[in-house]
């Protein structure tokens, strides 16, 4: 696909903005495509509902806001409730399993097969805690995303992590990425949709 619209949403403090930044950076700097991110700013980025909007495309991106997201990563119930209905038919919704209860009827389901919105759940926070710190749940989700949709290359994501984070945090974040990526690969081959 030549254009991806991705919304990452949750609470301030979950690394929502950083996740959007890393995704955009992987695309723009390492995959050499166009990428644009607009984000919540101010108090909302530091506590309450928070989101980042990323567009990745082969062509220059003029209008920088999402019109119909291809992908939603929901890290809170509120984010899921608010944004899941916007996701394009045939799109992808990834939820933090322990923070989001996906109530039926939220997703657009315009017929069988390719038009259904695909929903995958991952206990990203729990996986992150097992790796050493819950703070990397956002990177676990990025790994999960990378395996489930060809938005950016996994190598680009790894480079983005290496070049953006403090030295002491790189190893843990790369482990988080790999853990999420592996879970995504398994989910994909098992067609493990919710």
């Amino acid at each position, binding site marked *: 696909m030549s254009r991806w619209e991705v919304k990452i949403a949750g609470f301030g403090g979950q690394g929502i903005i950083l996740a959007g930044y890393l995704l955009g950076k992987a695309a723009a*700097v390492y995959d050499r495509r166009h990428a644009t991110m607009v984000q919540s700013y101010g108090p909302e980025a530091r506590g309450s509902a928070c989101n980042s909007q990323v567009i990745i495309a082969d062509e220059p991106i*003029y209008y920088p806001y999402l019109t119909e997201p291809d992908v939603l990563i929901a890290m809170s119930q509120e984010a899921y409730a608010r944004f899941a209905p916007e996701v394009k038919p045939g799109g992808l919704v990834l939820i933090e399993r322990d923070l989001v209860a996906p109530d039926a009827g939220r997703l657009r389901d315009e017929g069988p097969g390719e038009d259904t919105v695909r929903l995958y759940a991952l206990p990203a926070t729990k996986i992150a805690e097992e790796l050493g710190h819950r703070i990397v749940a956002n990177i676990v989700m990025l790994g999960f995303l990378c395996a489930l949709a060809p938005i950016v290359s996994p190598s680009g994501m790894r480079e983005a992590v290496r070049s953006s984070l403090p030295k002491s945090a790189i190893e843990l974040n790369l482990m988080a990425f790999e853990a999420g990526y592996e879970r995504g690969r398994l989910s994909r081959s098992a067609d493990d949709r919710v």
Partner: protein
Amino acid sequence: MKRGPAVLTGVHFINGDVACAEGALAAGCRFFAGYPITPATEIAERMAERLPEVGGTFIQMEDEIASISAVLGASWAGVKAMTATSGPGFSLMMENLGFGYMTETPCVIVNVQRGGPSTGLPTLVGQGDMMQARWGSHGDYETIALAPSSAQEMFDLTIAAFNLSEKYRLPVLIMSDAVIGHITERVIIPPEEEIPIVNRKRFTGPRETYLPYLPEDDLVPPMVAAGEGYRVYITGLTHDERGYPSTSPDAQERLVRRLAEKVRRNARDIIRLEERGMEDADVVLVAYGISARVAYRAMELARAAGRRVGWLRLITVWPFPEERLRELAARVRAFIVPELNLGQIAREVERCAAGRALTIPVLRPGGAVHDPREILAAIEEASHV
């Protein structure tokens, strides 16, 4: 102290404010004085981090009046200097901005616009300072103002702003907005040797022959720096070629006309526009900053519906591209001007159209960008008149 390169050649994913700071450094800016204000703070933040790495000076001042004063002083010391602010700070800078035009002091002032008036909407977008940029300081003068539409242009146009300010010896304004300041995008920084740099004309002749305000053929006088040994008198009063106050109608006529003419005569060198779909257009969208990108989406929607719509993006807003607008007014049906204010650039468009084409403003007072469909509705309206 940690040293770093002035030009960060490579591909980056950075926001518009950071790109602006990097553009300034690449242009040779080595002095920044400012007071933090949303949504321009990241420019100061980046400059505070980066200027010491390249041997420059960053000062956080007590307010914006002091900030622009320090910038003007730094320029007279021979250093390329910049400040960055938003609406409330821009208002405070107005008196000394005029001092900058009167004393022909090269420098760059960035305004990352938010919703106003007053403290307005600190974190949300606006484009309400466009006329203030043109007329905000008292008296008659011409200015140069550029309006970036992307993080890449925050880099590119900051370099262009420094080059224009050095070439024509005046404060150059970058009229950005909160969305473009905070948008994070791919920014390509070229190798240092590929970045064209303009430096102010220097006077190097004998001290006794130096006249600080004696213009050359291009109407721009060569400059010296404080400490080089030349006798320089700098005043905001109307002055003669020596720089001495001369409060006569004759001196006023010569000086004030020249200050305007050095910009007007070079309008073609200064003005940059970007156009799409103009070949067959009968309706033309005229926009700048973030609104130009929203308008582009409206053009795509309208073209898909069979409308013959053109898109004109003002990269240079002041001096206003009168010549191009007049040409277009003679052959198009209407101009549509979406902007995040209650009608500022729309007035300029209407003035140039002079009744030969309709001007349809699509206005929002700031806080959020347009929905492209609002602009599309105006295109439909224009197509049916």
